[in-house]
């Protein structure tokens, strides 16, 4: 009788497969040997074990070997090399899928079939499953239109903008995640079939709201791919609500838009029209060289886009950052990459080849009739230009002008580059108060109104406009009295801000003389420079993540220490509060891999990630200790939930102090971030083991209310003024026995100064630009009033009730 050998990466999988096959044997004896795993728990295959298993299974009639994948195949082949000639000739390696093949092979072997017959039977084992799925579905969702007998279906596009960039990106990402060739066709327009794996091809479908799309698939996971696509389509491609994505209906340019960044701006219009990149007339230095240049440039731009994506996710939430996923998909779009490759192979140099391929695809978008899709041609050109700049070394084009900037929308990079001294205001055709451009404009103190409709871009350059970013009111070419009113309001606002700026560098105390340190949250050396200019008393939060993200290996101790040192220097030696690495499964680090998590916000992040990667943590703590010998440093640990975590982190810090060998740094303070509600309630215990507590209101709010901030469907729920959140803050202040500070966005709300100081908070840390006004807000607080009022706020019904108390 023929013997069988099961080769698998997993011992457990092999055991279970053998058990399944044995059920079919009803007691008939078939020799099945297992060569699987390096041991019971370690995945891997071992050629020498396969040799032994083959020898054990061979009773003279030979052996059929079934394998799972990858190294199992290679190791089995190598095992054949290691066998002596006679034994080798009696072994057949069978390409059947492991489970199906083993079941069939066991039955065949039990009937006394030869090894070639057993192998042939096993190799056909997949036929049953294949024919099952090749048959028409029992309840046909669509007329069969499949080319190769694969599954087909149809769905209707429900989103208000059709299959625009973001849903198309989701569709493409999902299509690519299956081992199947998935194609789409717009039945309504009668378009040709296109590959669902190509964002540029999918966009050519011109799929608008109400259009019916057909889908067909072939390949191993064809059915799964179609099923998942239908689920995705039924969910509206993950767009939370219509309101969340709908650009506002076109309005008259004079009127109201969405208030995006408070403040009054008056000035002449200028438009953001980036200078085109000149494509150099270069000749190819060989296809491989040119192709490598393109690979390098694309990789550099991918890193840049990922950085912007991470920044946007940080300040504006993941929903807003998702649009950059479309940009990333464009960078490795098979249609684009294939075209470029063909041009490079045909002898074109990198830059001309790239430019031509981008232009072809952009032109296809532009020819698509629909406004929204035409605007996507701009996306393609923008991403294409980024790569061209990387290829040619041309400097990045940032919008530059004086007065009121008018644009369709701004990228975060553009918004972050605006100079508040020259830009009086920003008017956007699209976008919303929560868009990246709006949030960054607020951070830079530039008044902005968004969602004005495409008409606003038609206002000629030089026309005077006035805008109120707090109300969304915009007046084009205002009448003299209107202009006077705006100018007067702007002047009053300017005076107020001027007063704040004048006193920004002085410490802030409440009217009754209680000092409140106002620090800045910084995420780069540049932020630290801005913080110093804005009069920050300290860096109340240094987000060290920027040193760790988007790179292939962790920063060394020296590199980290150098950056921390430069941040301290930029702040003129004022105290810096270094928060240790705070990332999780939503921003995986390539050099600190962890398992995929269903819910990364409740997973291995913050101190938990540092605990799982002790070498990474130790290096960061050594950098902290090294700099703490030179300048005042506080260190704090994020996402702490238990006292044991804090004690372990302190232990690691003590080891770093020993390793540096210069004793305990004199000014080093150790703090705990209070983001987990349980930590707020255990403030007394934490206070016994820490020098200070720092409340991160952003995370505390979303954990306390179980509502993600970035989810537009839950807008308003994750409100840090919620009395439940304030109770947690108040408890921490009462119980801690050490100073409690707040470093979330709440601290930047001028109304919050009274609430928080009333609860007992004695330090606030905010975006650099907000420091002067927050100091002014602190100076306006009378604790004799604010204290009792804050206590009353704890009993309010809701956040609006709290605001009413402090109005």
């Amino acid at each position, binding site marked *: 009788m023929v013997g069988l050998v099961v080769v698998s990466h997993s011992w457990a999988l092999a055991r279970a497969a053998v058990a399944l096959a044995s059920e079919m044997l009803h007691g008939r004896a078939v020799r099945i040997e297992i060569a699987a795993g390096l041991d019971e728990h370690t995945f*891997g295959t071992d*050629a020498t074990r396969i040799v032994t298993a083959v020898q054990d299974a061979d009773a003279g009639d030979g052996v059929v070997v079934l394998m799972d994948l*990858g*190294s199992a195949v290679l190791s089995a*082949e190598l095992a054949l090399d290691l066998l002596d000639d006679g034994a080798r000739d009696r072994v057949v390696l069978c390409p059947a899928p492991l489970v199906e093949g083993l079941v069939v092979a066991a039955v065949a072997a039990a009937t006394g079939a030869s090894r070639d017959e057993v192998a042939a039977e096993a190799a056909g084992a997949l036929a049953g499953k294949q024919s099952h799925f090749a048959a028409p579905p029992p309840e046909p969702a669509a007329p069969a239109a499949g080319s190769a007998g694969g599954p087909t279906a149809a769905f209707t596009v429900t989103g208000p903008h059709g299959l625009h960039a973001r849903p198309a990106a989701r569709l493409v990402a999902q299509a690519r995640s299956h081992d199947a060739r998935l194609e789409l066709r717009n039945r309504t327009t009668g378009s040709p079939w296109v590959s669902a794996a190509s964002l540029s091809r999918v966009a050519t479908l011109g799929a608008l709201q109400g259009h019916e799309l057909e889908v067909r698939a072939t390949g191993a996971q064809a059915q799964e791919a179609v099923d998942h696509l239908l689920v995705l389509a039924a969910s509206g491609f993950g767009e939370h609500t219509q309101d969340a994505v709908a650009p506002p209906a076109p309005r008259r340019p004079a009127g109201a838009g969405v208030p995006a960044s408070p403040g009054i701006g008056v000035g002449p219009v200028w438009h953001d029209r980036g200078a085109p990149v000149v494509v150099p007339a270069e000749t190819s230095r060989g296809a491989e060289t040119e192709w490598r240049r393109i*690979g390098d440039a694309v990789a550099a731009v991918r890193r840049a886009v990922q950085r912007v994506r991470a920044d946007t996710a940080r300040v504006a939430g993941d929903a807003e950052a998702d649009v950059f996923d479309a940009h990333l998909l464009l960078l490795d779009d098979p249609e684009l990459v294939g075209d470029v490759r063909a041009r490079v192979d045909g002898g074109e140099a990198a830059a001309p080849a790239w430019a031509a391929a981008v232009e072809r695809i952009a032109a296809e978008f532009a020819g698509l009739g629909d406004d929204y899709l035409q605007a996507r041609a701009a996306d393609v050109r923008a991403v294409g230009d980024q790569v061209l700049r990387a290829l040619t070394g041309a400097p990045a084009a940032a919008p530059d002008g004086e007065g009121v900037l008018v644009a369709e929308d701004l990228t975060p990079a553009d918004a972050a580059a605006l100079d508040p001294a020259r830009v009086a205001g920003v008017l956007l055709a699209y976008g919303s108060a929560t868009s990246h451009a709006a949030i960054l404009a607020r951070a830079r103190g530039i008044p902005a109104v968004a969602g004005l409709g495409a008409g606003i871009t038609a206002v000629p350059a030089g026309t005077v406009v006035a805008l109120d970013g707090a109300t969304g009111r915009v007046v084009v070419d205002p009448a003299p009295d209107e202009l006077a009113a705006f100018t007067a309001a702007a002047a009053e606002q300017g005076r107020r801000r001027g007063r704040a700026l004048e006193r920004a560098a002085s410490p802030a105390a409440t009217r009754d003389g209680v000092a409140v340190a106002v620090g800045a949250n910084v995420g780069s050396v540049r932020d630290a420079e801005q913080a110093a200019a804005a009069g920050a008393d300290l860096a109340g939060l240094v987000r060290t993540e920027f040193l760790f993200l988007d790179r292939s290996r962790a920063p060394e101790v020296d590199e980290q220490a150098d950056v921390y040192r430069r941040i301290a220097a930029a702040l003129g030696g004022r105290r810096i509060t270094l928060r240790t690495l705070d990332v999780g499964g939503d921003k995986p680090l390539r050099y*600190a891999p962890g398992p995929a998590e269903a819910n990364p916000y409740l997973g291995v992040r913050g101190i938990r990630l540092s605990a799982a990667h002790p070498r990474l943590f130790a290096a960061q703590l050594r950098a902290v200790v090294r700099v703490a010998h030179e300048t005042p440093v506080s260190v704090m640990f994020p996402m702490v939930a238990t006292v044991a975590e804090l004690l372990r982190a302190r232990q690691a810090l003590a080891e770093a102090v020993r390793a540096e060998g210069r004793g305990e740094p004199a000014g080093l303070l150790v703090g705990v971030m209070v983001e987990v509600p349980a930590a707020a309630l255990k403030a007394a215990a934490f206070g016994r083991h820490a020098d200070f507590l720092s409340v991160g209101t952003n995370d505390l709010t979303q954990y306390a209310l179980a509502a993600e901030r970035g989810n537009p469907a839950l807008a308003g729920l994750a409100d840090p003024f919620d009395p439940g959140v304030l109770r947690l803050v108040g408890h921490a202040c009462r119980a801690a026995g050490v100073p409690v500070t707040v470093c979330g966005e709440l601290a930047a709300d001028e109304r919050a100064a009274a609430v928080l100081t009333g609860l007992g908070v004695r330090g606030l840390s905010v975006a650099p630009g907000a420091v002067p006004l927050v100091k002014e807000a602190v100076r306006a607080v009378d604790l004799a009033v604010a204290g009792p009022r804050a206590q009353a706020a704890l009993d309010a019904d809701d956040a609006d009730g709290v605001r009413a108390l402090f109005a």
Partner: protein
Amino acid sequence: MTDADVVDTAVLTAWVRHFARLVAEHAEELTALDAAIGDADHGTNMDRGLTAVVAALDGEPPAGAAALLKRVGMTLVSTVGGASGPLYGTAFLRMATAAGDRPALDPAGFAAALRAGLDGVAARGRAEPGDKTLCDAYAPAVDALDEALAAGRPLGEALVAAHAAAERGRDATTPMTARKGRASYLGERSAGHQDPGATSLALMFQAAAAAVR
């Protein structure tokens, strides 16, 4: 150190030990690269295998070059676990066969053994150039080695050239789309990531250049 024109068991041992050290130092990086396009175990697997190899070399000294290379190959085959086990294992076993019964190898003999290793790996993995595998670093390395030796340069220098070629080959894997191994399941998404196997292979030549200085 003097320029070795005899690759004996001492040189081979130094090579393999240094390779093990380099892999241990780069284990996290290799695993991170593999995490991007594979099953995130290349660094761990290679480190486990080469640690076992070093332990095996600590035992009774092998009789000659072939015995040493065979011991390395067999140890890798049964301790690495992933696809790099049979691939690197095959490379060293083929080197052992090429070494024959000579106690030590001359430069040309060492180069021929390394090429036999490449041929074995390519055949085992059915890899073609451009498939984004370790062969994309291995092939240019042995080409450069042969070329430098043919130009009359000493083995140490020739291995430095081979290492440089391996690194260029490794870097060139980044834009490639994987057509072999688990990374090929990612299709186009594998482009933009450096191949982990090509990365460890470049370390193998780095170690060789260091051992024969």
